[in-house]
């Protein structure tokens, strides 16, 4: 097995251009978040803890709140569906679409839809599905994968986008002016909205007390998407519930600031239900599909705190490993710290395939510091590393720790080893006893060994005083 971790290898091979785009986007995001939260709140950490506590409470009583939400949604006129896993969710959605005779639809940004690979599935089943979020639209044109929760094309620059537009016929000529790009996408998408028979969205929050669904965007694409169609399908992870409408005050204030450094996203939609008496706008049919797909198992695990996540991407922005490697390095829908926890958990029986992701962290804790719902991400990474070790998943470059434990629990052996380690001073790097150590020494100089010197000193010192 290679002595290098896959994510390190990926980072080593990433193009300078892509790395620069990611580095720029993430550090700008981190600075904006910090400035606005600290400008607007005397103690943003208290707010993060409150948000975390509300989510924690919700998760502890998730069955109760899910029932309440179901009743409220039904009373509002929506139809509620449950999907145990990705395949289930895909077929529920396909059945709804077929039931309404839909052959074309638009879809706003939804991580849950990414998670179940909905697009490809619908296309394979003859349903044209157009992404209406600008970033996701570009990802779709490029047959690429989103690399960030909030900014799916953080890894691309405008020159690449202009090239794509020209190649895919969205525009007749090359123009990389951001405003022109947006305008051209808009014209193109307008036609798609009008031709669609349904709109698929995610949901940022669902209020259990009122059944109100909350969607935030900066482009108004959910509003456009829903305006002309008779059918709205919302695919919602079961962890998206909040107990009461008034709890939104905490979450909306944190979400915009944490995600994009905005006090509030440009559009915040509150959807009370399908068109009805007194609600003259919007689709006549509203379907809410609650997605489990491993979440119940996570809830029962010792990593349940990750279900508090409101998908703001702040942990990705601040993460030094994500900045170097990009979201694609994580080989899954969710990259960065949140993905390093969520992906192996969602993988279920496939845990071993993604057991390397929780290793891709120096455990620096920057993610925990910015997370708006106060998720102790480093602790969860450590728990997953422990699980990987228990399950004896092989890990590239890993050094067995039992010799270390033996040494560190035998004081006299330890003292001898310390004194002998001075021999290392005279060894050239190339003969370092283990391959991973050679990797490390490739770019660094090791300090001179002074094993045992302090012990000698303190002995003399204590004798004199």
């Amino acid at each position, binding site marked *: 097995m290679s002595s290098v971790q896959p994510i390190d290898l990926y980072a080593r091979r990433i193009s300078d251009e892509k790395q620069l785009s990611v580095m720029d986007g993430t550090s700008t995001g981190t600075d904006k978040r910090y400035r606005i939260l600290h400008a607007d709140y005397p103690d943003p950490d208290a707010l993060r803890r409150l948000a975390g506590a509300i989510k924690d409470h919700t998760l502890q009583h998730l069955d109760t709140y899910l029932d309440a939400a179901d009743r409220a949604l039904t009373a509002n006129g929506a139809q509620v569906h449950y999907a145990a896993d990705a395949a289930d969710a895909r077929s529920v959605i396909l059945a709804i679409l077929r039931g309404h005779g839909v052959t074309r639809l638009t879809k706003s940004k939804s991580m849950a839809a990414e998670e179940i690979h909905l697009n490809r599935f619908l296309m394979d089943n003859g349903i044209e599905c157009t992404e209406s979020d600008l970033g996701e639209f570009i990802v779709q044109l490029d047959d690429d994968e989103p690399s960030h929760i909030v900014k799916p094309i953080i890894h691309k620059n405008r020159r690449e986008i202009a090239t794509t537009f020209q190649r895919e016929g969205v525009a007749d000529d090359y123009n990389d002016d951001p405003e022109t790009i947006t305008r051209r996408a808009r014209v193109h998408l307008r036609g798609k909205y009008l031709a669609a028979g349904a709109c698929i969205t995610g949901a940022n929050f669902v209020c259990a007390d009122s059944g109100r669904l909350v969607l935030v965007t900066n482009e108004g694409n959910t509003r456009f998407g829903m305006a002309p169609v008779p059918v709205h399908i919302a695919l919602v992870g079961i962890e998206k519930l909040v107990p009461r409408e008034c709890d939104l005050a905490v979450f909306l204030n944190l979400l915009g600031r944490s995600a994009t450094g905005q006090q509030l996203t440009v559009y915040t939609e509150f959807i009370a239900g399908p068109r009805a008496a007194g609600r003259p706008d919007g689709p006549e049919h509203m379907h809410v599909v609650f997605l489990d797909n491993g979440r119940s198992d996570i809830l029962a695990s010792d990593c349940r705190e990750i279900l508090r996540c409101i998908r703001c991407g702040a942990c990705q922005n601040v993460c030094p*490993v994500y900045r170097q490697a990009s979201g694609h390095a994580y080989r899954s829908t969710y990259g960065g710290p949140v993905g390093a926890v969520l992906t192996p958990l969602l993988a279920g029986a496939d845990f071993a395939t993604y057991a390397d992701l929780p290793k891709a962290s120096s455990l620096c*804790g920057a993610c925990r510091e910015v997370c708006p719902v106060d998720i102790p991400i480093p602790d969860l990474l450590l728990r997953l590393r422990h699980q990987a070790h228990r399950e004896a998943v092989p890990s590239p470059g890993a050094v067995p*720790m039992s010799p270390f434990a033996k040494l560190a629990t035998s004081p006299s052996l330890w003292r001898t080893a310390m004194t002998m380690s001075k021999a290392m001073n005279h060894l050239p790097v190339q003969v370092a006893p283990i391959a991973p150590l050679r990797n490390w020494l490739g770019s660094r100089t090791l300090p001179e060994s002074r094993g045992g010197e302090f012990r000698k000193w303190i002995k003399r010192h204590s004798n004199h005083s």
Partner: protein
Amino acid sequence: MSATHARPVGKRVLLMGTCLCDAFFDDVARATVEVLEHLGVEVLYPEDQTCCGQPAFNTGDWDASRQVARHCARVFVGDLPVIVPSGSCAAMHLHGNRLQFEQEPDDDIASLAARTWEVVDFIHNGLGVTRWPGRFDTPTRIAFHRSCHCRDTGTGAAARALLSSIAHAEVVPFGQAEQCCGFGGTFAVTFPHISAQMGSLKIDHIRDIQPDLLAGVDMSCLMHLDGLAAAQGRRVPHKHVVQILRDTLIS
């Protein structure tokens, strides 16, 4: 951290020298003793000490790390404060152990957590030293690297307060201070590329402010940064905060 007020303070302490000082940085352990003794604190050094167990803990081999942590807790048994010249080892006692002993509570482990202080935190928040009676001969610009394990402890503010109170010292902030230096123990070994990139960025930001001295509270970070900077031919003189406190003392 919530433990701050409950932890014992006293004029007799146990020193945990850390494995890194045992192997490489004897002068940092020595400076810890000298600074504490200057403050009238008697320092005891239990001979059988080895390591806190963090290297194994971070890899996920908690059987190994729990053995080492238990050994450590037995060596430092008692009711005296345990002083560590490393934010990272202190965090292992204060936090890491809590995680790995969740399912098997251990009184000695809990006691160790309740008595552990990172040394600069102890001096400032434990002993109440707010100003350091030291001076540099010439104006000295200090870049202080607040290591990641001190994100939410008293150490960062303590170090800044003490360093800036030294005559002729100026603690100068540098860019992206919240970013990790890239050491992370075994992380540096299994992710050599990313680790080195992170370190190089940190060195860029530090060098941007043209400091005379780089100060830190974890020799692991400083060793990593200096090792990288040396390989790149752009070293910055560096010291642990306790070395600076000792070296600037006006005697």
